[in-house]
């Protein structure tokens, strides 16, 4: 086996060498990304309200129906840009009016959020809408 051109051990070495090399490259890119992120995520605007809003977003499993920056379920509208699409007042009224109980229509549960929680959630969605996403989504509809 040792004298052949493309042996199992050559294949194995390509596997180990290649994996390690590209994982290290990935780490380098990750390091560079981490350095550059403050310019695109505007972390200086991460207020306690935004942090609390993210927690409310998570603990109500919003991602189970919606997408956020295109990730999540595809059952309900994209919310990464909902703040620009609908605005604060609409979001809060909408959340309070759920469910619509319109027969046969997709239903959003009533999450019974307090006024404070709604404000925090909106703050989170506002911050999210300001992330520099390289121009995505293509239009306001998400």
């Amino acid at each position, binding site marked *: *086996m040792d*004298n*052949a051109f*493309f042996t*199992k051990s050559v*294949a*194995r070495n*390509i*596997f180990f060498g*290649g*994996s390690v090399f*590209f*994982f290290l*490259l*990935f780490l380098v*890119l*990750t390091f*560079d*990304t981490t350095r*550059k*992120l403050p310019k*695109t*995520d505007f*972390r200086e605007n*991460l207020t306690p309200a*935004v*942090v609390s809003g993210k927690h409310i977003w*998570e*603990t109500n*499993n*919003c*991602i*189970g*129906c919606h*997408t956020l*920056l*295109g*990730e*999540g*379920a*595809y*059952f309900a*509208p*994209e919310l990464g840009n909902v703040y620009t699409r609908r605005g604060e007042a609409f979001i809060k009224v909408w959340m309070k009016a759920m*469910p619509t*109980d319109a027969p046969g*229509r*997709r239903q*959003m*549960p009533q999450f019974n959020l307090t006024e404070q929680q709604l404000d925090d959630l909106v703050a989170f969605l506002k911050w999210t809408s300001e*992330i520099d*996403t*390289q*121009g*995505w*989504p*293509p239009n*306001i*509809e*998400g």
Partner: protein
Amino acid sequence: MQYQSQLVAKPYFIAAIGLFIAQIIFGLIIGTQYVIGDFLFPEIPFNVARMVHTNLLIVWLLFGFMGAAYYLVPEESERELYSPKLAIITFWVFLITGALTIVGYLAVPYATLAAMTGNDLLPTMGREFLEQPLITKVGIALVVLSLLYNVTMTTLMGRKTSITIILLMGLWGLAFFWLFAFYNPVNLVLDKYYWWWVVHLWVEGVWELIMAALLAFILIKVTGVDREVIDKWMYVIIALALITGIIGTGHHYYWIGTPSYWQWWGSIFSALEPIPFFVMTLFAFSMVNRRRRDHPNKIATLWALGTAVTAFVGAGVWGFMHTLAPVNYYTHGSQITSAHGHLAFYGAYVMVVLAIISYAMPIMRGRVANSPQAQLWETWAFWLMTISMVVITLLLTGAGVMQVWLQRIGDTPLSFMATQDELATFYWLRLVGGGVFFIGLIAYVISFFIKGDVVLVSVDGETKDEKVHIPLEDEIKAVEKQVVAKEKDKREEEHATAEEENKPEVALASTEFSVDEKSQKER
């Protein structure tokens, strides 16, 4: 079965199939909610049913991988499992944790579950696929660590093969990247960045090592092709998978607030991601064509071929379709993603787990293969499930293309919900596809209960079907020992020949991977 302790795999496989059934039932529920929006509302809202659907998939695949590891490692290491008792305890811990989690999802509102389970201590919940309460996440980590301890000890104390090394690397990688499930920074961009270290580096990274190892093991068993040849293919496949797949993570970093250079890195490397799956297809067919025996377990071979092809189509082709940044700009987060997700998961991971179950389960039940009648049922199940999943994928792709067109391209884009109304026909047909898939799954389960004619294997390895019942365990052992001995002989023989002749092996591009048995003898 060569080692008694391999039997611990059996409850893992049974649990996997049970949870698979539940997963599909919840799939049918959410498929229905796509067209009858208020179906089961408010009892089971979509987000809950969807979470159950995806979490059950992950958990049952993990059950499958674990069962496969417990079955495969003793056989490869040529010794009993380090601790069968630990494997059984781990099984119950995992099953109970999993079941309680699902009950929790269904019984109380998600926010209540989060509060009950200490999510405020370390918030990890509420992210796609990582919805599990903290306790469940810790439970999964412990269960995997227990498995790793058990199989690593077994391997260290026994024979070390390429297959076990790669399987163990895959499982250790699975455990390592799971740790990122516990990292949830308040900055959404960072959160998403490292979320993919679990999701992408699992399914397009370390899980592919597990898949390749399982496929290699099954192919060695059912084709009798020399281990050296199969190992080499396996290394080529996983080398290509990780070389393309690690930087390929970049195809998730286009639009989440990360620098724009990821559009280049992601596009270029992930465009190459279909290659390992293509090689895997070549591998499976080439090994089966060059088989040295006709294993009576035809259906296990079919699953092995099926997983290679469907993974190539689902993960490779359907992944490529929307992986280039300029395309992904329009398709990101649409039904195209859903289409790709369905066929990729089914092809790569569902089918490889069903392949190992199909190979190992009859042996654990005391026969080398199921009766032809049972295999016929399973073959029907194979085609019903596979074809319906392909149809589901085509329909979701159609829905996705139309969605992109109506909602994202054009001067007067429709709103999300208005677009969804236009897609109803696709969703109805998809639901029918789901129904057919479920029928296939029922046929699969029934196949386990079909008795039929006993498959006998004579000691010379030829099979014949006879309607006589005799205990087969000894016979199987005899045959398997013979095969092992043959493999060993062949290895030595080939080793000797290779040294003698000083002949280089044929390179990758050629159809022949190494000097085959016949030509050696002729020489």
